C-alpha cells in the first residue's frame, strides 16, 4: 500500500503542470553589475554567480515574489588586486557570508512598465529594507526586468576598519541589473 501511495504521489508531482506564474532566469542574457570609485577613479564589475526564483502573474502584481541569491565571492572587476580584496574580511567576508539575498513580495505598479519591488536586501548578515525600481517588459514568454539602485556600502558593513570612510573607496555603489526570464509551463 505504502509503495502505491508513493508511486501515486510521484506520478501526481511529475504530471502537475508547472505554475504559469513561475519564471526561469536566463543567466546568459542576464547581468548583475555594480560600479564605484577607487581613489577617485571609476570601476565596474559584476557578479558571475547568482540565482533566483521569481513568481509573477501580470494579472496580480501584488502576489509576485522574487528571491535573488548572489554568490558574494563571484564579484569581479577585472583588477587582480581589487578582486583579491573583495571577498576578504573587510569587504564581503565571503567565507562568513557567502551569499547576499534580495527578497521581495509584491510588485507595485508605477504606471507604464515601471514597477517597484519593496523587499529586504541582506549583505554580510545585515538586512535592510530596499525599494527596488525597475522596468518590466514582457514579450511572449520572455520577460526583461531592468533596474538600478544606489547602495551606500557601509549600510551593509561592506568596507570595515579604515575602509568605513570614503577616502579611498567611494561609499556609494551603483548596482544595475538586467534580468531575463522565461515563463515556465504553458
Amino acid at each position: 500500500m505504502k509503495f502505491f501511495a508513493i508511486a501515486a504521489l510521484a506520478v501526481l508531482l511529475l504530471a502537475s503542470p508547472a505554475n504559469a506564474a513561475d519564471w526561469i532566469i536566463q543567466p546568459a542574457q542576464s547581468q548583475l553589475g555594480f560600479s564605484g570609485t577607487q581613489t577617485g577613479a571609476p570601476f565596474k564589475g559584476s557578479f558571475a554567480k547568482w540565482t533566483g526564483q521569481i513568481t509573477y502573474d501580470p494579472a496580480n502584481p501584488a502576489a509576485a515574489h522574487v528571491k535573488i541569491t548572489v554568490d558574494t565571492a563571484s564579484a569581479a572587476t577585472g583588477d587582480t588586486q581589487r578582486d583579491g580584496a573583495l571577498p576578504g574580511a573587510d569587504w564581503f567576508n565571503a567565507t562568513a557570508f557567502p551569499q547576499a539575498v534580495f527578497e521581495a513580495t509584491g510588485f507595485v505598479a508605477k504606471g507604464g512598465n515601471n514597477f517597484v519591488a519593496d523587499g529586504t536586501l541582506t549583505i554580510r548578515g545585515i538586512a535592510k529594507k530596499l525599494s527596488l525600481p525597475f522596468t518590466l517588459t514582457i514579450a511572449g514568454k520572455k520577460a526583461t526586468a531592468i533596474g538600478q539602485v544606489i547602495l551606500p556600502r557601509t549600510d551593509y558593513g561592506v568596507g570595515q576598519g579604515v575602509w568605513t570612510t570614503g577616502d579611498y573607496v567611494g561609499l556609494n555603489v551603483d548596482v544595475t541589473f538586467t534580468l531575463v526570464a522565461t515563463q515556465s509551463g504553458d
Partner: protein
Amino acid sequence: MRGSPPVRYDLAAILLHWVIGLGIAVLIVLGLAMVHLPLAIGLKFQLYQLHKSIGITVLLAVLLRVLWRLTHQPPALPQDMPAAEKTAASASHFLLYGLMLAMPLTGWAMVTVSPYDIPTVLYGVMPWPDMPVLSTLVDKKPADAITTFLHHKLGYIFIALICLHAAAALRHHFFLRDGILRRMLPFGG
C-alpha cells in the same frame, strides 16, 4: 682550496650590484615621495603599489647577491689600505647586506599586517602572498606599529649608509686612485 682572490668582480656580481643599486635608489625616492608629498590620492596609491613591486623585485635580487657572495671570493682590498679602513669597509658592507634584507622584509611584514589589508599584486599582474606567520596574527595592531617604525627608521639609517658607501667609493676613485671603484664598474676594467 682557496685560490688567490680575483682582481675584479665578475659579471653576475656587477650586474646584481647595479640593478639592486638602481632599484634601491628608485625605492628611496618613491618611499619618501609617497609618504611626505601632498599627492593626489590616486597617484599616492599607485606609488605605494609600485614601491611594493620594486621592493619585492629587489629582495629577490638581493637573495641572489647573497648567494653569490656566499659562494664567491670578492676581490681583495689594496694591501696598503690601513687596517682600520679595511675593518670599516667590511663592517659597512656587512651592514649594507643586512639592511638590503631588512628593508624589504620589514616592508613585506608591514604590508602583511597593515590595517588596509590590500593584496599585493606585483606590477598589477603577479599576486604575491602575505608573509607567513604574521598573516595569521589575530591582533595585527602592535605588529603594524613595530614594522612601520622599523621600516621607516631603518630606511633613514640605510640612506645614510648608502651615502657613506658611495662617498667611500668616490674617495677611493678620485682621491686615493686605487682602482677600487673600477672593480665594480661594468666597463673599463
